[in-house]
């Protein structure tokens, strides 16, 4: 990938995470996840009643590579809250289990089902 493409993809990512409070880069869609890890995060967010934008990286090879470089994170899914990278599936799951995820979301002004 050349630098021009990089910056175009990065720009799109910046826009997406600025325009949407909760963004999940995932394989497949929230309705039809294509990977167990993505499905697990969708399930957690849905359980918490959190509104989020799912972005299917399988539809876009440039984004698939770009998001890994943008976050310095090698795997998908990736969860962003208010423009900040929260983590991948394992971290989201661990934070959910300890209650930290609800706390992190509500402290950032995101509605979470009690």
């Amino acid at each position, binding site marked *: 990938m050349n630098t021009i493409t990089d910056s175009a993809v990065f720009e799109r990512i910046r826009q997406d995470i600025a325009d949407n409070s909760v963004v999940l880069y995932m394989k497949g869609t929230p309705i039809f996840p294509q990977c167990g890890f993505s499905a697990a995060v969708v399930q957690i967010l849905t359980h918490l009643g959190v509104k989020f934008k799912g972005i299917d990286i399988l539809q876009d090879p440039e984004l698939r590579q770009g998001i*890994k470089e943008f976050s310095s*994170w*090698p*795997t*998908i899914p990736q969860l962003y809250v208010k423009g900040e990278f929260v*983590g991948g599936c*394992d*971290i989201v799951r*661990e934070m959910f289990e300890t209650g930290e995820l609800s706390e992190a979301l509500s402290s950032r002004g995101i509605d979470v089902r009690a």
Partner: protein
Amino acid sequence: MAMDAATIERLIKESLPDAKVTIEDLRGDGDHYAAHVLSAAFVGKSRVQQHQMVYAALRGRMGNELHALALQTGVP
């Protein structure tokens, strides 16, 4: 493509010599692992940073050969 558990453990220990590494083959198929890594090097780091350190130890294999590595990190 798969990696065996011993290779994963060796790579992690090369970067984090004090690490206590436990690897579980989740499905017995050599392709779905769970790794639990405890290291003093994680002190003061966020979870994201701790995982990034393990990914760095795996030198680019995570997300490629290694698709399914459930990771848990902590301080001993």
